[in-house]
Protein backbone atom coordinates (compact mmCIF):
# COMPACT_ATOMS: atom_id res chain seq x y z
CA UNK A 1 0.00 0.00 0.00
CA UNK A 2 1.48 3.33 -1.03
CA UNK A 3 2.11 5.87 1.73
CA UNK A 4 -0.38 8.20 0.11
CA UNK A 5 -3.18 5.71 0.17
CA UNK A 6 -2.37 4.67 3.73
CA UNK A 7 -2.40 8.27 4.82
CA UNK A 8 -5.79 8.74 3.24
CA UNK A 9 -7.25 5.75 5.05
CA UNK A 10 -5.80 6.72 8.43
CA UNK A 11 -7.04 10.23 8.03
CA UNK A 12 -10.66 9.24 7.50
CA UNK A 13 -11.89 9.37 11.12
CA UNK A 14 -10.14 12.68 11.65
CA UNK A 15 -11.55 14.10 8.45
CA UNK A 16 -14.98 12.84 9.45
CA UNK A 17 -14.91 15.00 12.56
CA UNK A 18 -13.90 17.99 10.47
CA UNK A 19 -16.67 17.22 8.01
CA UNK A 20 -19.22 17.27 10.82
CA UNK A 21 -18.05 20.76 11.77
CA UNK A 22 -18.27 21.88 8.14
CA UNK A 23 -21.77 20.49 7.88
CA UNK A 24 -22.93 22.07 11.12
CA UNK A 25 -21.54 25.47 10.16
CA UNK A 26 -23.20 25.18 6.75
CA UNK A 27 -26.51 24.00 8.17
CA UNK A 28 -26.70 26.84 10.69
CA UNK A 29 -25.76 29.39 8.04
CA UNK A 30 -28.36 28.06 5.62
CA UNK A 31 -31.20 28.09 8.14
CA UNK A 32 -30.37 31.53 9.54
CA UNK A 33 -29.91 33.10 6.11
CA UNK A 34 -33.09 31.54 4.72
CA UNK A 35 -35.21 33.10 7.45
CA UNK A 36 -33.42 36.45 7.53
CA UNK A 37 -33.15 36.66 3.75
CA UNK A 38 -36.82 35.83 3.19
CA UNK A 39 -37.87 38.52 5.67
CA UNK A 40 -35.53 41.10 4.15
CA UNK A 41 -36.60 40.15 0.64
CA UNK A 42 -40.25 40.69 1.51
CA UNK A 43 -39.34 43.96 3.16
CA UNK A 44 -37.41 45.05 0.09
CA UNK A 45 -40.40 44.47 -2.18
CA UNK A 46 -43.44 45.11 0.01
CA UNK A 47 -42.11 46.95 3.01
CA UNK A 48 -42.24 50.63 3.94
CA UNK A 49 -40.63 52.71 1.16
CA UNK A 50 -38.20 54.17 3.69
CA UNK A 51 -36.70 50.76 4.45
CA UNK A 52 -36.37 49.45 0.90
CA UNK A 53 -33.19 51.35 -0.02
CA UNK A 54 -31.63 50.38 3.32
CA UNK A 55 -32.21 46.70 2.64
CA UNK A 56 -30.87 47.08 -0.91
CA UNK A 57 -27.79 48.91 0.39
CA UNK A 58 -27.12 46.13 2.91
CA UNK A 59 -27.44 43.50 0.21
CA UNK A 60 -25.25 45.37 -2.29
CA UNK A 61 -22.50 46.18 0.19
CA UNK A 62 -22.23 42.71 1.68
CA UNK A 63 -22.30 41.05 -1.74
CA UNK A 64 -19.71 43.51 -3.03
CA UNK A 65 -16.92 42.42 -0.69
CA UNK A 66 -15.06 39.11 -0.63
CA UNK A 67 -16.33 36.53 1.88
CA UNK A 68 -12.86 36.34 3.42
CA UNK A 69 -12.91 40.06 4.21
CA UNK A 70 -16.28 39.68 5.91
CA UNK A 71 -15.01 36.73 7.95
CA UNK A 72 -11.95 38.67 9.11
CA UNK A 73 -14.04 41.76 9.79
CA UNK A 74 -16.39 39.84 12.07
CA UNK A 75 -13.72 37.68 13.71
CA UNK A 76 -11.37 40.54 14.57
CA UNK A 77 -14.00 43.22 14.83
CA UNK A 78 -16.37 41.80 17.44
CA UNK A 79 -13.85 41.58 20.32
CA UNK A 80 -12.73 45.12 19.57
CA UNK A 81 -16.24 46.46 20.09
CA UNK A 82 -16.58 44.47 23.27
CA UNK A 83 -18.20 41.20 22.17
CA UNK A 84 -16.18 38.12 23.02
CA UNK A 85 -17.30 35.25 20.84
CA UNK A 86 -15.52 32.05 19.88
CA UNK A 87 -14.33 31.43 16.36
CA UNK A 88 -17.20 29.06 15.55
CA UNK A 89 -19.74 31.76 16.36
CA UNK A 90 -17.81 34.39 14.39
CA UNK A 91 -17.64 32.04 11.45
CA UNK A 92 -21.34 31.28 11.49
CA UNK A 93 -22.22 34.95 11.95
CA UNK A 94 -20.02 36.15 9.09
CA UNK A 95 -21.17 33.46 6.67
CA UNK A 96 -24.78 33.98 7.71
CA UNK A 97 -24.54 37.69 6.96
CA UNK A 98 -23.05 36.94 3.55
CA UNK A 99 -25.62 34.29 2.76
CA UNK A 100 -28.49 36.47 3.98
CA UNK A 101 -27.50 39.17 1.50
CA UNK A 102 -27.56 36.57 -1.28
CA UNK A 103 -30.91 35.13 -0.21
CA UNK A 104 -32.38 38.64 0.01
CA UNK A 105 -31.45 39.22 -3.63
CA UNK A 106 -32.89 35.87 -4.67
CA UNK A 107 -36.12 36.52 -2.78
CA UNK A 108 -36.40 39.98 -4.31
CA UNK A 109 -35.88 38.54 -7.78
CA UNK A 110 -38.47 35.83 -7.24
CA UNK A 111 -41.09 38.22 -5.86
CA UNK A 112 -40.55 40.82 -8.54
CA UNK A 113 -40.69 38.25 -11.31
CA UNK A 114 -44.34 37.58 -10.56
CA UNK A 115 -46.31 39.45 -13.20
CA UNK A 116 -48.28 42.39 -11.79
CA UNK A 117 -51.37 40.91 -13.44
CA UNK A 118 -51.40 38.19 -10.81
CA UNK A 119 -51.68 40.76 -8.04
CA UNK A 120 -54.41 42.59 -9.99
CA UNK A 121 -56.47 39.48 -10.66
CA UNK A 122 -56.20 38.62 -6.97
CA UNK A 123 -57.32 42.15 -6.01
CA UNK A 124 -60.19 41.90 -8.49
CA UNK A 125 -61.74 38.97 -6.65
CA UNK A 126 -61.48 40.89 -3.40
CA UNK A 127 -58.49 39.26 -1.67
CA UNK A 128 -56.74 41.32 1.02
CA UNK A 129 -52.97 41.88 0.95
CA UNK A 130 -52.36 38.96 3.29
CA UNK A 131 -54.61 36.65 1.29
CA UNK A 132 -52.99 37.69 -1.99
CA UNK A 133 -49.53 36.95 -0.62
CA UNK A 134 -50.49 33.60 0.87
CA UNK A 135 -52.64 32.22 -1.94
CA UNK A 136 -51.24 33.80 -5.09
CA UNK A 137 -47.86 35.52 -4.81
CA UNK A 138 -45.83 33.39 -2.40
CA UNK A 139 -46.72 29.99 -3.92
CA UNK A 140 -45.50 31.24 -7.29
CA UNK A 141 -42.45 33.05 -5.92
CA UNK A 142 -41.38 30.02 -3.90
CA UNK A 143 -41.24 27.90 -7.04
CA UNK A 144 -38.94 30.39 -8.73
CA UNK A 145 -36.84 30.91 -5.62
CA UNK A 146 -36.05 27.29 -4.83
CA UNK A 147 -33.56 26.28 -7.57
CA UNK A 148 -31.53 29.48 -7.22
CA UNK A 149 -31.55 29.09 -3.47
CA UNK A 150 -30.01 25.62 -3.62
CA UNK A 151 -27.11 27.26 -5.49
CA UNK A 152 -26.61 29.68 -2.62
CA UNK A 153 -26.50 26.67 -0.31
CA UNK A 154 -23.53 25.24 -2.24
CA UNK A 155 -21.91 28.67 -2.01
CA UNK A 156 -22.31 28.48 1.77
CA UNK A 157 -20.63 25.08 1.88
CA UNK A 158 -17.75 26.32 -0.28
CA UNK A 159 -17.47 29.50 1.77
CA UNK A 160 -17.29 27.43 4.94
CA UNK A 161 -13.82 26.25 3.90
CA UNK A 162 -12.49 29.73 4.63
CA UNK A 163 -13.38 29.51 8.30
CA UNK A 164 -10.41 27.21 8.78
CA UNK A 165 -8.38 30.42 8.56
CA UNK A 166 -9.85 31.73 11.80
CA UNK A 167 -9.27 28.50 13.64
CA UNK A 168 -12.52 26.61 13.20
CA UNK A 169 -11.84 22.87 13.14
CA UNK A 170 -13.66 22.14 9.88
CA UNK A 171 -12.85 19.71 7.08
CA UNK A 172 -10.32 22.10 5.55
CA UNK A 173 -8.43 22.44 8.80
CA UNK A 174 -8.53 18.70 9.33
CA UNK A 175 -6.97 18.21 5.91
CA UNK A 176 -4.22 20.72 6.71
CA UNK A 177 -3.50 19.04 10.04
CA UNK A 178 -3.26 15.55 8.55
CA UNK A 179 -0.91 16.87 5.86
CA UNK A 180 1.15 18.48 8.58
CA UNK A 181 1.60 15.07 10.20
CA UNK A 182 2.02 12.85 7.15
CA UNK A 183 3.41 15.17 4.45
CA UNK A 184 1.09 13.44 1.96
CA UNK A 185 -0.28 16.68 0.56
CA UNK A 186 -1.60 15.64 -2.83
CA UNK A 187 -3.61 12.57 -1.78
CA UNK A 188 -5.19 14.44 1.08
CA UNK A 189 -6.16 17.41 -1.06
CA UNK A 190 -7.65 15.05 -3.61
CA UNK A 191 -9.60 13.24 -0.91
CA UNK A 192 -10.78 16.50 0.63
CA UNK A 193 -11.72 17.83 -2.78
CA UNK A 194 -13.70 14.69 -3.48
CA UNK A 195 -15.68 15.09 -0.27
CA UNK A 196 -16.55 18.73 -0.97
CA UNK A 197 -17.38 17.77 -4.53
CA UNK A 198 -19.71 15.01 -3.39
CA UNK A 199 -21.65 17.38 -1.15
CA UNK A 200 -21.95 20.26 -3.59
CA UNK A 201 -22.49 18.25 -6.72
CA UNK A 202 -25.18 16.31 -4.89
CA UNK A 203 -26.85 19.59 -3.96
CA UNK A 204 -26.64 20.91 -7.52
CA UNK A 205 -28.21 17.73 -8.87
CA UNK A 206 -31.02 18.29 -6.38
CA UNK A 207 -31.40 21.85 -7.65
CA UNK A 208 -31.61 20.71 -11.25
CA UNK A 209 -34.20 18.11 -10.29
CA UNK A 210 -36.28 20.79 -8.55
CA UNK A 211 -36.05 23.08 -11.56
CA UNK A 212 -37.32 20.37 -13.90
CA UNK A 213 -40.20 19.42 -11.69
CA UNK A 214 -41.35 22.99 -11.19
CA UNK A 215 -40.72 24.35 -14.69
CA UNK A 216 -44.10 23.37 -16.10
CA UNK A 217 -45.66 26.19 -14.13
CA UNK A 218 -43.70 28.70 -16.18
CA UNK A 219 -45.73 28.01 -19.32
CA UNK A 220 -48.24 30.74 -20.10
CA UNK A 221 -47.95 34.34 -18.98
Amino acid at each position, binding site marked *: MSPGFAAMLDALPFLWRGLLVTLSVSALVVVLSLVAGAVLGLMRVYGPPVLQPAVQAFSDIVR*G*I*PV*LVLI*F*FVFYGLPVV*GLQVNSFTSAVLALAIFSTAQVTELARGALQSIHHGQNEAAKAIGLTFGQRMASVILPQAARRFLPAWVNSVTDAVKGSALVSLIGVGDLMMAIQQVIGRTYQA*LPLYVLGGAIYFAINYGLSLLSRHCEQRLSYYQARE
Partner: protein
Amino acid sequence: MPYHLNFGFVWLHFDRLLSGLALSLSMAALAIAIGVAIGLALAVAHVSGSKATRAAISAYVEIFRNVPLLLLVYFVFYGIPTEFDIRYGATASFVATLAIYAGAYLVEVFRAGLAAVPMGLIEAGKAIGLTPWQRLLHVRLPTMLRISLPALGNTFVSLFKDTSVAAVIAVPELTFGAQWINLNSFRVVEVFSVITLMYLGTGYAMLRLMRLVERRFSVNRT
Protein backbone atom coordinates in the same frame (compact mmCIF):
# COMPACT_ATOMS: atom_id res chain seq x y z
CA MET B 1 -14.95 49.80 26.48
CA PRO B 2 -15.81 52.30 23.78
CA TYR B 3 -13.89 52.07 20.55
CA HIS B 4 -12.36 55.23 19.16
CA LEU B 5 -11.80 55.39 15.44
CA ASN B 6 -8.26 56.21 14.44
CA PHE B 7 -7.23 55.97 10.84
CA GLY B 8 -3.64 57.08 11.44
CA PHE B 9 -1.98 53.72 11.04
CA VAL B 10 -4.08 52.90 8.03
CA TRP B 11 -3.12 56.09 6.21
CA LEU B 12 0.52 55.60 7.17
CA HIS B 13 0.56 52.25 5.44
CA PHE B 14 -1.97 53.04 2.76
CA ASP B 15 0.67 52.24 0.15
CA ARG B 16 0.35 48.57 1.08
CA LEU B 17 -3.34 48.75 0.34
CA LEU B 18 -2.85 50.57 -2.93
CA SER B 19 -0.17 48.21 -4.18
CA GLY B 20 -2.28 45.34 -2.90
CA LEU B 21 -5.22 46.58 -4.92
CA ALA B 22 -3.01 46.94 -7.97
CA LEU B 23 -1.81 43.37 -7.53
CA SER B 24 -5.36 42.07 -7.02
CA LEU B 25 -6.46 43.80 -10.21
CA SER B 26 -3.49 42.54 -12.21
CA MET B 27 -3.96 38.98 -11.01
CA ALA B 28 -7.67 39.20 -11.78
CA ALA B 29 -7.02 40.64 -15.23
CA LEU B 30 -4.50 37.94 -16.12
CA ALA B 31 -6.65 35.13 -14.74
CA ILE B 32 -9.68 36.53 -16.56
CA ALA B 33 -7.81 36.80 -19.84
CA ILE B 34 -6.65 33.19 -19.63
CA GLY B 35 -10.03 32.10 -18.32
CA VAL B 36 -11.84 33.76 -21.22
CA ALA B 37 -9.57 32.00 -23.67
CA ILE B 38 -10.24 28.66 -21.98
CA GLY B 39 -13.94 29.38 -21.69
CA LEU B 40 -14.38 30.39 -25.33
CA ALA B 41 -12.39 27.47 -26.65
CA LEU B 42 -14.25 24.95 -24.52
CA ALA B 43 -17.66 26.50 -25.20
CA VAL B 44 -17.09 26.12 -28.93
CA ALA B 45 -15.68 22.63 -28.42
CA HIS B 46 -18.70 21.68 -26.35
CA VAL B 47 -21.16 22.80 -29.01
CA SER B 48 -19.36 21.15 -31.89
CA GLY B 49 -17.64 18.25 -30.18
CA SER B 50 -18.28 14.59 -29.66
CA LYS B 51 -20.06 13.09 -26.69
CA ALA B 52 -16.70 12.30 -25.08
CA THR B 53 -15.53 15.90 -25.51
CA ARG B 54 -18.74 17.19 -23.98
CA ALA B 55 -18.44 14.82 -21.05
CA ALA B 56 -14.84 15.84 -20.40
CA ILE B 57 -15.73 19.53 -20.49
CA SER B 58 -18.68 18.97 -18.15
CA ALA B 59 -16.41 17.11 -15.75
CA TYR B 60 -13.96 20.01 -15.74
CA VAL B 61 -16.75 22.49 -15.10
CA GLU B 62 -18.39 20.48 -12.33
CA ILE B 63 -15.13 19.77 -10.50
CA PHE B 64 -13.98 23.38 -10.42
CA ARG B 65 -17.39 24.77 -9.55
CA ASN B 66 -18.06 22.43 -6.66
CA VAL B 67 -14.73 22.49 -4.82
CA PRO B 68 -13.79 25.49 -2.64
CA LEU B 69 -11.28 27.87 -4.23
CA LEU B 70 -9.21 27.69 -1.05
CA LEU B 71 -8.65 23.98 -1.49
CA LEU B 72 -7.70 24.46 -5.14
CA VAL B 73 -5.20 27.16 -4.16
CA TYR B 74 -3.59 24.87 -1.58
CA PHE B 75 -3.61 21.98 -4.02
CA VAL B 76 -1.68 23.94 -6.64
CA PHE B 77 0.67 25.75 -4.26
CA TYR B 78 1.42 22.97 -1.73
CA GLY B 79 0.10 19.74 -3.22
CA ILE B 80 1.73 19.71 -6.62
CA PRO B 81 5.23 20.88 -5.58
CA THR B 82 5.32 18.32 -2.75
CA GLU B 83 4.48 15.48 -5.09
CA PHE B 84 6.33 16.46 -8.23
CA ASP B 85 9.29 18.40 -6.91
CA ILE B 86 8.60 21.58 -8.90
CA ARG B 87 8.79 25.10 -7.51
CA TYR B 88 6.91 28.23 -8.34
CA GLY B 89 6.05 31.47 -6.62
CA ALA B 90 2.82 32.11 -4.78
CA THR B 91 1.55 34.76 -7.16
CA ALA B 92 2.11 32.66 -10.27
CA SER B 93 0.54 29.70 -8.51
CA PHE B 94 -2.54 31.70 -7.56
CA VAL B 95 -3.01 33.22 -11.00
CA ALA B 96 -2.82 29.78 -12.60
CA THR B 97 -5.36 28.41 -10.11
CA LEU B 98 -7.73 31.34 -10.55
CA ALA B 99 -7.42 31.13 -14.34
CA ILE B 100 -8.49 27.50 -14.43
CA TYR B 101 -11.23 28.25 -11.88
CA ALA B 102 -12.38 31.18 -14.01
CA GLY B 103 -12.39 29.01 -17.11
CA ALA B 104 -14.92 26.66 -15.53
CA TYR B 105 -17.35 29.50 -14.80
CA LEU B 106 -16.78 31.24 -18.13
CA VAL B 107 -17.45 28.09 -20.14
CA GLU B 108 -20.96 28.14 -18.70
CA VAL B 109 -21.45 31.83 -19.45
CA PHE B 110 -20.32 31.39 -23.03
CA ARG B 111 -22.34 28.21 -23.52
CA ALA B 112 -25.49 29.97 -22.37
CA GLY B 113 -24.66 32.92 -24.61
CA LEU B 114 -24.12 30.68 -27.61
CA ALA B 115 -27.41 28.92 -26.99
CA ALA B 116 -29.17 32.26 -26.78
CA VAL B 117 -28.18 33.33 -30.28
CA PRO B 118 -31.51 33.63 -32.13
CA MET B 119 -32.07 30.83 -34.60
CA GLY B 120 -33.13 33.44 -37.14
CA LEU B 121 -29.65 34.96 -37.30
CA ILE B 122 -28.03 31.59 -37.88
CA GLU B 123 -30.52 30.80 -40.61
CA ALA B 124 -29.86 34.15 -42.23
CA GLY B 125 -26.19 33.19 -42.26
CA LYS B 126 -27.02 29.88 -43.88
CA ALA B 127 -29.20 31.66 -46.40
CA ILE B 128 -26.32 33.80 -47.67
CA GLY B 129 -24.15 30.71 -48.04
CA LEU B 130 -21.79 30.95 -45.09
CA THR B 131 -20.01 27.75 -44.08
CA PRO B 132 -20.49 26.48 -40.52
CA TRP B 133 -17.07 27.87 -39.56
CA GLN B 134 -17.89 31.25 -41.09
CA ARG B 135 -21.23 31.27 -39.32
CA LEU B 136 -19.46 30.58 -36.05
CA LEU B 137 -16.91 33.30 -36.57
CA HIS B 138 -19.04 36.03 -38.09
CA VAL B 139 -22.51 35.43 -36.71
CA ARG B 140 -22.60 33.29 -33.60
CA LEU B 141 -19.53 34.39 -31.65
CA PRO B 142 -20.04 38.14 -32.11
CA THR B 143 -23.71 37.83 -31.16
CA MET B 144 -22.87 35.56 -28.25
CA LEU B 145 -20.40 38.09 -26.88
CA ARG B 146 -22.95 40.89 -26.94
CA ILE B 147 -25.53 38.70 -25.24
CA SER B 148 -23.08 37.54 -22.57
CA LEU B 149 -21.85 40.98 -21.57
CA PRO B 150 -24.02 41.41 -18.45
CA ALA B 151 -23.20 37.92 -17.15
CA LEU B 152 -19.53 38.46 -17.99
CA GLY B 153 -19.46 41.68 -16.01
CA ASN B 154 -20.81 39.95 -12.93
CA THR B 155 -18.39 37.03 -13.32
CA PHE B 156 -15.42 39.37 -13.69
CA VAL B 157 -16.31 41.25 -10.50
CA SER B 158 -16.76 37.94 -8.72
CA LEU B 159 -13.32 36.77 -9.83
CA PHE B 160 -11.79 40.05 -8.71
CA LYS B 161 -13.23 39.46 -5.24
CA ASP B 162 -11.86 35.92 -5.30
CA THR B 163 -8.31 37.33 -5.50
CA SER B 164 -8.66 37.88 -1.75
CA VAL B 165 -8.06 34.15 -1.26
CA ALA B 166 -4.46 34.70 -2.44
CA ALA B 167 -3.83 36.23 0.98
CA VAL B 168 -3.74 32.76 2.51
CA ILE B 169 -0.56 31.93 0.61
CA ALA B 170 0.96 35.30 1.48
CA VAL B 171 0.49 36.99 -1.86
CA PRO B 172 0.70 40.73 -0.99
CA GLU B 173 -2.66 41.68 -2.45
CA LEU B 174 -5.33 43.91 -0.92
CA THR B 175 -6.73 41.60 1.76
CA PHE B 176 -3.24 40.50 2.77
CA GLY B 177 -2.22 44.14 3.12
CA ALA B 178 -5.28 44.79 5.28
CA GLN B 179 -4.47 41.79 7.47
CA TRP B 180 -0.91 43.06 7.94
CA ILE B 181 -2.22 46.43 9.05
CA ASN B 182 -4.79 44.72 11.28
CA LEU B 183 -2.31 42.43 13.00
CA ASN B 184 0.18 45.24 13.49
CA SER B 185 -2.22 47.79 14.90
CA PHE B 186 -5.51 46.11 15.71
CA ARG B 187 -7.27 48.93 13.92
CA VAL B 188 -9.74 46.34 12.68
CA VAL B 189 -12.76 48.48 11.96
CA GLU B 190 -10.73 51.17 10.24
CA VAL B 191 -8.71 49.01 7.90
CA PHE B 192 -11.51 46.64 6.95
CA SER B 193 -13.87 49.55 6.34
CA VAL B 194 -11.30 51.11 4.06
CA ILE B 195 -10.84 47.96 2.03
CA THR B 196 -14.60 47.43 1.95
CA LEU B 197 -14.83 50.78 0.19
CA MET B 198 -11.95 49.84 -2.08
CA TYR B 199 -13.54 46.54 -3.10
CA LEU B 200 -16.97 48.14 -3.55
CA GLY B 201 -15.52 51.03 -5.54
CA THR B 202 -13.51 48.79 -7.81
CA GLY B 203 -16.43 46.42 -8.38
CA TYR B 204 -18.70 49.34 -9.19
CA ALA B 205 -16.13 50.79 -11.58
CA MET B 206 -15.81 47.43 -13.31
CA LEU B 207 -19.58 47.17 -13.77
CA ARG B 208 -19.80 50.71 -15.14
CA LEU B 209 -17.02 49.89 -17.57
CA MET B 210 -18.90 46.81 -18.72
CA ARG B 211 -22.03 48.90 -19.19
CA LEU B 212 -20.06 51.31 -21.41
CA VAL B 213 -18.80 48.38 -23.46
CA GLU B 214 -22.36 47.05 -23.65
CA ARG B 215 -23.66 50.33 -24.95
CA ARG B 216 -20.98 50.58 -27.61
CA PHE B 217 -21.53 47.09 -28.92
CA SER B 218 -25.20 46.35 -28.27
CA VAL B 219 -26.26 48.47 -31.23
CA ASN B 220 -29.19 46.62 -32.73
CA ARG B 221 -31.01 44.28 -30.40
CA THR B 222 -33.72 42.41 -32.29
